[in-house]
């Protein structure tokens, strides 16, 4: 089943909040891989609870800095739990969506960049990466990028969608395309 994951890192232990997490994500599975880390797997549903709501609730109740990630399930397959949990500890506190998290990891150092490059690269064909870079080169203009690649714009649109399916990264958005530009150009 398709799922999303939520990772939370706090300054003090939030294990006592297990009930809160289970109440907020009734269909989810809550784990604590470390004393200050929470890992929630939440199946995709029609009206899912908004993880950012939980971030704000916890922030106002616990009153301490939290690092809070909302990621698509494909991130787990692509990078593995350990990499995500380690990455969580490397970035500044705040709420991150997927692409913002990957950008923060790129900033965190070369070893993270290498792993991201390897994992994303192995999930895609070289054509995908070449096409993403062409899109960046043409200021996100799909028509111009397709023309430069000698493909129909629908073909390029199909490949963009395929990148999203395989990596969870939306290169129609600036942050998503920036990840490819920083890792592969």
């Amino acid at each position, binding site marked *: 089943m398709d799922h999303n994951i939520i990772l939370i890192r706090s300054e003090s232990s939030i294990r006592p909040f297990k009930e809160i997490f289970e109440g907020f994500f009734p269909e989810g599975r809550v784990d604590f891989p470390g004393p200050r880390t929470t890992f929630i797997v939440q199946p995709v549903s029609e009206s899912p609870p908004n993880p950012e709501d939980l971030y704000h609730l916890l922030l106002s109740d*616990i009153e301490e800095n939290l690092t809070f990630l909302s990621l698509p399930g494909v991130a787990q397959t692509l990078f593995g739990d350990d990499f995500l949990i380690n990455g969580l500890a490397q970035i500044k506190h705040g709420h991150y969506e997927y692409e913002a998290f990957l950008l923060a990891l790129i900033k965190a150092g070369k070893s993270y960049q290498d792993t991201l490059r390897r994992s994303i690269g192995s999930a895609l064909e070289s054509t995908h990466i070449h096409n993403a870079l062409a899109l960046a080169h043409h200021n996100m203009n799909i028509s111009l990028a397709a023309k430069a690649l000698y493909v129909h714009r629908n073909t390029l649109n199909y490949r963009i969608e395929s990148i999203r399916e395989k990596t969870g990264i939306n290169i129609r958005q600036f942050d998503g395309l920036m990840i490819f530009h920083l890792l592969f150009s």
Partner: protein
Amino acid sequence: MGILSFKNMQKIYEGNVQAVTDFNLEVQDKEFIVLVGPSGCGKSTTLRMVAGLEDITEGDLVIDGRRVNNVPPKDRNIAMVFQSYALYPHMSVFDNMAFGLKLRKRPKDEIKRRVDEAAQILGLQDLLNRKPKALSGGQRQRVALGRAIVRDAEVFLMDEPLSNLDAKLRVQMRAEIIKLHEKIKTTTIYVTHDQIEAMTMADRIVIMNDGYIQQVGSPSEVYDFPNNLFVGGFIGTPAMNFINGHLDDEGHFVTGKTKIKIPKAKWDNLKEQGYENKEIIFGIRPEDIHDENLVKETYPDAVTNFKVDVAELLGSETNITAQFEGQTVIARVDARTDIAINDTIELVFDMNKSHFFDTETTQRIREKDEDKKKLQRKNA
């Protein structure tokens, strides 16, 4: 008490990104302060520094006489309300409001008393056993406010709490928050990018841009006496019109082929400050451009022709976007005026309401009796 003192506060992020520069402000007990400005101006960063969620790079933050730069958030006695107005879906209204107090291990009877008091203030007494999904949008917002009220904090921090709401609920909640502040009188710092919220809710507005405070003042003060072009353009919808031109030596503002007579007191002041025969920016609010004959007769030297680009009927008034000496000007006139696109119409500037800005510094050129006028308004 909830007295806050910001002294030369700065926030510099890694990479030498300066988010807030030299922030100085004294917030009085029970005051409702609104920080307003465009995205990225540093208002939320400032609020997060008060909350203790961001480190203060330089300067001091003093709450009730105690420097709190290094005090953890939970020991600052503040309550935060965030954008999403979220609630725990599996808890009753009572438990949602009580949760923060339970975490702080307050005695049960005290928790009950505080939740009951907050419910009384917010009119939620009959809803305490309901779950959030059984509440209307407005009721949910009130519970979210209740979660802050029960904390009995010295200061409320609100970070764009209305920005996720639809237009109708936003207006309703704006009024609720004003009423609430009247009742409980807790010092509040409220962040928004919406200048209408700022104007309607604040005791004092702090207008920020690029990390700097541009002006601090009451809503009427920042509207009528903007410090600079930024404030003049940011506060007011539609924004203040700015027309480039110069002053001659006979008391006129000149732009293109148009000469507009400046009232004597304003002209004397401009002349005294050395702006005679100099480039200047003329500012006028849309509502100070008129089409009524009476005003035209009063200021015959300020009547000019405009070519209408767009006429937007808003019901009680019409906003006219027009070309004036190659510059775009917006006027707000009575809706009864029959105006069509491409018409050439006569409008008149109410020059007593005019503002003049220095082209280099972008600061408004102050008038001599300005402080007196501000004081009169304050006393009134």
